[in-house]
């Protein structure tokens, strides 16, 4: 499988990358780790005339603290997310999620930017970013704007990104210390996309839930933020009846496709099962 021909560009600054994206227009694609784009190009489902490789842009790498947020450059690989002690301490759900993405070789090369910006509903990070209420930095010719992850995903491979814009970083508000978290993913084998997956971040106070946020992966055209489920759980002691009600609310917003991973009704049910498990584990971990 050999991709179509293209011209290769390797800018060294965000400014040059955005300027190339703008001037080359719709025939140009930015490439990060390439582990979504190159397989598409090999199948000729994508045939960009220009590839703009972001690997030479140093500003797009790295994980740093900025006030109460952690900012992650889009070229940071899944492997680097797994290795980061800062993330392990502050936002441990990112390591837990990264380790469930693909396999070791893919994690060495695949980036958080590709995972969140491609708009593939099978990717794991988007629902986690919605759960964490992350914001994406989008840079275009006219400057930078910030888009909430919860408003970024509009359809399969369709995002709020405008032509010529590049996501440069992900900004995540650090959840309170002592929060509980879990990313539960049902998959047929290692490396597979989720049949269904659920992300939970919650805080407890006196045995009751003070905040709770839920994200769901691969059970709709877009990742989902299950706002109502989180609201139902807030104030509860995560008793079985309330969990059941919240799970029903989460299942109600899913609309998965029937495919090799199972019929739609099964995948909806599995989203509920993953959420139930994620809630139990997050509760165990919460201080």
């Amino acid at each position, binding site marked *: *499988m*050999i*991709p*179509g*021909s*293209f*011209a*290769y560009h*390797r800018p060294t600054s965000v400014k040059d990358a955005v300027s190339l994206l703008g001037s080359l227009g719709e025939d140009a694609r930015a*490439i990060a780790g*390439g*582990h979504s784009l*190159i*397989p598409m*190009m*090999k199948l000729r489902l994508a045939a960009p005339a220009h*590839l703009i*490789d972001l*690997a030479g842009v140093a500003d797009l790498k790295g994980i740093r603290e900025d006030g109460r947020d952690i900012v992650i450059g889009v070229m940071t690989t899944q*492997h680097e997310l797994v290795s980061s002690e800062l993330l392990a301490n502050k936002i441990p759900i990112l390591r837990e999620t990264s380790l469930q993405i*693909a*396999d*070791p*070789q*893919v994690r*060495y*090369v695949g980036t958080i930017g590709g995972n969140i910006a491609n708009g593939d509903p099978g990717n794991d990070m988007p629902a986690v970013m919605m759960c964490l209420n992350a914001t994406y930095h989008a840079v275009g010719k006219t400057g930078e704007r910030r888009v909430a992850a919860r408003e970024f995903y509009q359809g399969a491979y369709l995002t709020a990104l405008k032509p010529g814009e590049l996501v440069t970083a992900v900004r995540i508000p650090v959840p309170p210390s002592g929060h509980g978290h879990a990313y539960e993913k049902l998959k047929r084998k*290692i*490396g597979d996309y989720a049949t269904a997956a659920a992300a939970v971040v919650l805080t407890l106070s006196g045995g009751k839930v003070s905040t709770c946020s839920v994200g769901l992966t691969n059970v709709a055209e877009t990742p989902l933020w299950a706002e109502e489920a989180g609201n139902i759980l807030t104030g509860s002691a995560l008793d079985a009846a309330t969990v059941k009600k919240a799970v029903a609310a989460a299942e109600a917003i899913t609309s998965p496709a029937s495919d090799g991973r199972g019929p739609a009704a099964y995948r909806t049910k599995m989203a509920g099962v993953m959420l139930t498990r994620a809630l139990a584990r997050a509760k165990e971990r919460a201080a």
Partner: protein
Amino acid sequence: MAKSQISMTVNGKKVEELVEPRTLLIHFLREQLNLTGPHIGCETSHCGACTVDLDGKSVKSCTMFAVQANGADIRTIEGMAAADGTLHVLQEAFREMHGLQCGFCTPGMITRAYRLLQENKKPTEEEIRFGIAGNLCRCTGYQNIVKAIQYAAAKINGVPLQEAAE
């Protein structure tokens, strides 16, 4: 399409070549450098037969363009044995523990195991299995591959081999 000039270090040797941007690293290695150790298996980033070591990472060379590897330091299975032909401890381990049957996955398995042991000198059986999850073998059922990696780890660490449970 205009060709690009790339240079890299492959198995310790400097190479400079012209490539079309669309040339995948696996094709570059096999067809331009005649390094046919890395294999083309699934071509869809799943099987890991094309795995090479690149700048301290295990990568699937079927899912990278050669131009992206410009400037990189690459090691393939051909670069594992010593110049005098002495096998690398992992090669010896795969032979001793019958870690291969048809051998198709072996170059990828060994280059991947090499990086795994660089990062984790004493992996548990579970860590080995998780660490080679990106490499498929259709013959062995993995048991002897895991044993071979345990053999190599034990030898590197100078401790007696503790075999995986049957």
